[in-house]
């Protein structure tokens, strides 16, 4: 077995962090090698070293058996390594051709001597791109503008971009994070095809289902170390999860039967537009009752964001009615809605959930700082705020150096715990949680899931909006699937399967 790539003893230190600690990793020719681990486990650092974005402090890299040094991304490309980044590295106003040839331009014959002032040859490039897309089954239109393409197509552009540079080793960094289950399956077919034609693939993910679906070999990283390696046939979800976290993890949330009470949130024919006046929520009606979790599934960008914003008073309602406990709140302000005992865990925790430069303490009272007991008239009582903050930091296990630390310097999981503590510690009747565990590590996810179920068991109505189908399936009592601004169907969680939800998420109603 020839090794396409071998890294041994890779160590990388960042100020205060040992990101990679004596990591060994290898990749055989034509192999799909999954790299599994939580956020912060050091996967990204490792592949960024392989792609030349970082230089290792110690360790060697060999490509095709030859020891080498990858000095820069340019160097990596020259040595046949291509990378598809988690956040696409595409320029939206440029066409597919322009994005693919950028930095590796083909120019009209006879003008080469002008270097970067020579004439671009878009036609030859487009032909080459078409040939590549046929060879590997990556359907793309070279003349389309990237900004007009759906994410699945953008990802194909990224892969073709690497292939165009004659990459033999492909690094895919969390490629499925933005895809529907069906699109992810399509991607796996493409990956298989690439591997069969001799490409070697490093596939980074934190989703266990996916490594079983596509990987030839699985390596698990934790806290900067390589903690184990296995063939999919010899591993189980539980064993891999335990390796990732370093202890046994409860993958299945244990929750009691729901006892739905009176409707808390009632939405009738709600329509909402986005900033560009496109209808994003289109005549949606549903109810959430006390003591139940209604999960809203759907691929991102199908109106979930606007729905949550409308429900929390952050976006104007174009049409329809929202009532909470029989009070009309269609045009209520965010504060009025908060005061109606509504908790909101926003989708973008850094932009809308926290004031990043404020201390943890202040962020914990953002909903109530203006009222007794925290304020008397115009004066704020910091000692009371500190008491509450100390309580909440303890109860919600927020790992912070102190309550005066700026919340922006905490890890993602701890930032989210601050939000959850602030929102769920109040006596709430309705919880609106958008993507509550996006980008978090398994431990924090487990914690936040338990808190959401607890809120339900205390009698709150919970609206859970998530693009992670697994999260929806494991937490919800009922599941509504959104597609292009409409709720296509609402299923009972007991009868809902991943297949049915996946079909609905792709807009297929017949199943």
């Amino acid at each position, binding site marked *: 077995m020839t090794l396409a790539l071998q890294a041994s003893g890779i160590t990388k230190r960042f100020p205060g962090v040992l990101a990679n600690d004596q990591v060994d990793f290898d990749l055989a020719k034509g192999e799909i090698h999954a790299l599994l681990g939580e956020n912060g486990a050091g996967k990204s650092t490792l592949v960024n070293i392989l792609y030349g974005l970082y230089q290792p402090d110690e360790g060697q890299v060999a490509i095709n058996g030859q020891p080498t040094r990858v000095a820069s991304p340019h160097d990596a490309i020259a040595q046949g390594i291509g990378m598809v980044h988690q956040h696409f590295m595409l320029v939206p106003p440029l066409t597919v051709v322009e994005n693919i040839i950028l930095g590796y331009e083909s120019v009209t014959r006879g003008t080469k001597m002008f270097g*970067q002032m020579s004439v671009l040859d878009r036609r030859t490039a487009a032909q080459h791109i078409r040939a590549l897309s046929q060879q590997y089954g990556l359907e793309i239109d070279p003349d389309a503008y990237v900004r007009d393409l759906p994410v699945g197509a953008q990802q194909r552009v990224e892969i073709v971009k690497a292939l165009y540079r004659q990459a033999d080793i492909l690094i895919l960094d969390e490629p499925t994070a933005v895809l529907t289950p069906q699109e992810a399956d399509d991607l796996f077919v493409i990956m298989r095809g690439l591997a069969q034609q001799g490409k070697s693939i490093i596939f980074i993910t934190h989703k266990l289902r996916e490594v079983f679906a596509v990987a030839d070999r699985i390596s698990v990283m934790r806290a900067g170390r390589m903690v184990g390696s296995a063939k999919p046939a010899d591993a189980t979800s539980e064993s891999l999860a335990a390796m990732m976290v370093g202890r046994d993890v409860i993958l299945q949330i244990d929750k009691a039967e729901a006892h739905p009470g009176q409707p808390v949130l009632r939405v009738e024919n709600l329509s909402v537009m986005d900033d560009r006046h496109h209808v994003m929520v289109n005549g949606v009606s549903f109810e959430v009752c006390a003591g139940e979790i209604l999960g809203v599934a759907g691929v991102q960008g199908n109106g979930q964001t606007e729905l949550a914003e409308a429900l929390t008073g952050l976006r104007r309602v174009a049409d329809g009615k929202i009532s909470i406990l029989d009070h009309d709140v269609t045009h209520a302000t965010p504060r009025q809605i908060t005061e109606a005992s509504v908790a909101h865990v926003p989708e973008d925790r850094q932009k809308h959930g926290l004031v990043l430069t404020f201390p943890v303490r202040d962020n914990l009272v953002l909903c109530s700082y203006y009222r007794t007991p925290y304020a008397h008239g115009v004066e704020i009582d910091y000692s009371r705020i500190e008491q509450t903050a100390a309580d909440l930091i303890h109860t919600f296990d927020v790992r912070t150096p102190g309550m005066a630390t700026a919340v922006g310097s905490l890890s993602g999981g701890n930032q989210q715990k601050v939000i959850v503590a602030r929102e769920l510690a109040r006596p709430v009747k309705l919880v609106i949680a958008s993507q509550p565990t996006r980008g978090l590590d398994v431990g924090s996810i487990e914690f936040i899931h338990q808190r959401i179920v607890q809120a339900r068991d205390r009698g709150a109505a919970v609206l859970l909006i998530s693009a992670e189908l697994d999260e929806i399936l494991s937490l919800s009592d009922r599941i509504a699937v959104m597609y292009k601004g409409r709720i296509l169907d609402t299923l009972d969680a007991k009868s809902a399967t991943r297949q049915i939800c996946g079909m609905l998420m792709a807009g297929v109603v017949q199943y």
Partner: protein
Amino acid sequence: MSTTTARSIVKDIQVSGLRGRWWVTALFGVLLLVAVWMLLNLVIGGKCGADCVQGTLAQTLRVATPIAFAAFCGVLCERAGVVNIGIEGQMLMAAMAGYAVNLFAFQALKDSIGIEAAGNLSRWLAVLAGILSALILAALHAVVSIEFKTNQIISGTVINILSVGITGFLYRQFLAENLPPGPGTFPIAPIPVLSQIPVIGPILFQQKPLTYLMLILAFAIHYVLYYTPWGLRTRAVGEHPRAADTLGINVYRIRYINVLVGGLVAGLGGAWFTLEAVDVFNPLMTNGLGFIGLAAMIFGKWNPFGALLGALIFGLGNSITSTVSIFRPDIPSQLPQMLPYLLTIIVLTGVVGRATPPAADGEPYEK
């Protein structure tokens, strides 16, 4: 074959930002010009006949020249993601450097090579001096805003203030009085054959050299931006520098070179004031045209031809102003003189629709 050609032409137009039915725009433009002409005649009592129209349009192109140079400088910088509001200062510096070099080089040369040759040589040396002086300020802006990642608005403002101070000081020290006679501005250089074409000839081809250079630059920048690897990289760097970086493109190098070349172009714009327009240097003589150039750039949606069109509209406002003041001296000259600035405000409040700048415009790139 013809359909593919037609399609590629349409594509070209779309790439250059003039989306949609361009001929409708052209027709609309012509009608607007006629309306402006009729309105003008209404004000000055029907005295604007064929000669006056021709003169006004030729004047339009003349006045549009520095505005267009400023706008091109803006296009080059901002397409690479660097906001440059120091163009005004760069032009002012170039205007002074050009004027001084023109004067003193002529004095040094006239005895050895004759008055005629000395005039020609010193004018071009003056253009070179203007370019170099603007280049130095552009280099300052580049180092401060690309290398040290300072706020680009502040850096540009500093350049403007610095340049007002330096030129004001040097003017009072050396250029205010007791000046020897200079060679004057560039003479009109009619282009053979083309200048004989009726109507168009006198407007387009009986101009001074920098004006021709400006028109050539519009094509050159369009070509570079949309047809060369350099242009592709520039646009990518202005929109998404990290994406360019991951493909092995040196973001800093692209930005440096674009800002410096922008400085050259702004220098040409500055040279226009003292080498084409008038044979004197006054403090503050650029009079905000650098900023109007930025407005023209926005009007043109960061495309060179769009920017040229914007500059021409401001130029038209300006030349109508002078036509009015010739025929109607009773109208206070300040009133028509407001026109270009009013146009700026109207243009910037969205007559052109929402103009979206390059996504990374004004943001220093952190590796």
